């Protein structure tokens, strides 16, 4: 432990952690949305072309993981729903909101390690909101946040440990959360400075509610297929729709 202490001291200045952004946040006014004029932006993320076939995860070297799968698990890199839409696309308002500080919800966002798979595959969370990471497996996991803007970290989580709680201090979209014990395990985290984001599910749709009227740039991020943007104008108390299409 002495050796470890020396090393930590030696390298205390060479980390790449970004400086805290407390001052910037403090300088911003608190966000306020008038419910009378707020509207909803919704849409679908479509996929055209041949449906990609996701490989089966080989868990044979980890029998404890394999035993938990009723059928062999498949990768979730690109999941096309039966209705031709994409699952696990992260959608958010990229530009157009007035600069403000949006208070994060008090309830944590959950990320579960179950069957040696991260659930959900894509996580949307706000800056300073708590991420609660649980291990439901009978095996050890490590959880490695491979963030670039936020400070990266790597922690261990033993079976049935208390949930590990973490927060992210800066907006960052998207970065992987990985487990090196089980190298197929990968979740994607989107940290937003405001609450207007969504992750598409089994119907490939998204809905951003309570948005102030205005013209916005909507961004979709998919871990493999990349980013897409579109403009949308939302009238006071109205609705606006925008769809995005990926393909191969």
């Amino acid at each position: 432990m002495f050796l470890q202490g020396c090393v930590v001291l030696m390298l205390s200045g060479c980390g790449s952690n970004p400086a805290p952004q407390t001052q910037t946040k403090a300088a911003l006014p608190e966000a306020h949305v008038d419910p009378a004029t707020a509207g909803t932006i919704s849409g679908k993320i479509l996929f055209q072309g041949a449906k990609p076939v996701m490989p089966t995860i080989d868990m044979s070297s980890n029998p404890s993981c394999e035993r938990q799968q009723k059928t062999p698990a498949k990768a979730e890199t690109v999941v096309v729903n039966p209705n031709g839409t994409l699952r696990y696309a992260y959608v958010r308002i990229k530009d157009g909101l007035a600069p403000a500080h949006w208070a994060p919800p008090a309830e944590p966002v959950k990320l579960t390690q179950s069957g040696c798979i991260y659930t959900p595959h894509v996580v949307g969370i706000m800056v300073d909101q708590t991420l609660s990471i649980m291990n439901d497996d009978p095996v050890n996991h490590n959880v490695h946040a491979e963030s670039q803007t936020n400070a990266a970290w790597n922690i261990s989580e033993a079976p049935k440990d208390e949930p590990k709680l973490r927060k992210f201090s800066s907006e960052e979209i998207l970065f992987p959360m990985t487990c090196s014990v089980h190298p197929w395990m990968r979740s994607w985290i989107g940290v937003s400075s405001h609450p207007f984001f969504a992750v598409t599910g089994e119907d490939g749709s998204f809905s951003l509610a309570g948005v102030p009227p205005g013209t916005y740039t909507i961004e979709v991020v998919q871990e493999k297929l990349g980013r897409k943007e579109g403009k949308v104008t939302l009238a006071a108390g109205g609705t606006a729709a925008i769809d995005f299409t990926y393909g191969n």
Partner: protein
Amino acid sequence: MATENSFNRGLHRWSILLAFCTLLLVVAGALVTSKDAGLSVPDWPLSYGKLMPKMEGGIFYEHGHRMIATTVGMFTIVSLIWIFRTDRRNWMRKLAVAALLAVILQGVLGGMTVLYLLPWWISSSHATLAQLFFSTTVAIALFTSKGWLGGPAIVPEDAENPLRGLSLAAPICLLGQLFLGAAVRHKAIGAIYHICGAPLVTAVVLWVSMRILLHYARNRELRTSAILLISVTLCQVFLGIAAYMTRIAYADAIQPMPLMVTFTVLHVATGALTLATSIAMAILVRRNLGERVEMPESALEA
């Protein structure tokens, strides 16, 4: 200080064992990287707060690597003590101390790369020092061998085909190429740099080795080392191509694929063998080469 030394079979065999275990350690380290298991144990020097965690998934590779490293460290300490007790060569004792310092530094670098989440320069330094440490253990095995202690078979250096300086070119180029390879593995640079370096380094290795085979082949030690270096280098080129091709083929794989892991690990291990052979060859050149002379045609033909 006396410089004469008698052959110690036990020490020599122990040195060979140390070199072999170090090569295993290089293989274990290469497996950690190829299996993406470098951060599977977040803490160091303990593993999950224990001396012996459950060996599952990536932990098997990472903690296994640590266990082999600890064994090699212990073996190096035994070597140091053994050399100090039985070997009268002062420079040999210094080499044994250097080996111990290298293995300690290597352990610290290994811990740092875990605690600082695999920064490329620490990880690459760790990988490169591993290769240098392996070469050191091979050199110790060479210096404790019966052949070495029996004395050199001096051959004069041909003034038209000098070898002494040239023999250093191979290990220097190989070390640079190994560092590039480590930097590629740790995602600091693109593979193109390592790929471009390969023909240059191969050319240097062939140049030095062919000079030995063409002009100094009458010395058995030099001839053997040159043939060995050419053989291992050609193997290394083949393994490098195979490792790269499998990496391209499995670029979209969601987990490390066995064929890619196999070729990459063999490439790393053979890289260590190539460097060690080139260093041994450079050492043998310095030991066996006499004064530089103008060689008559008849001597060359002989």
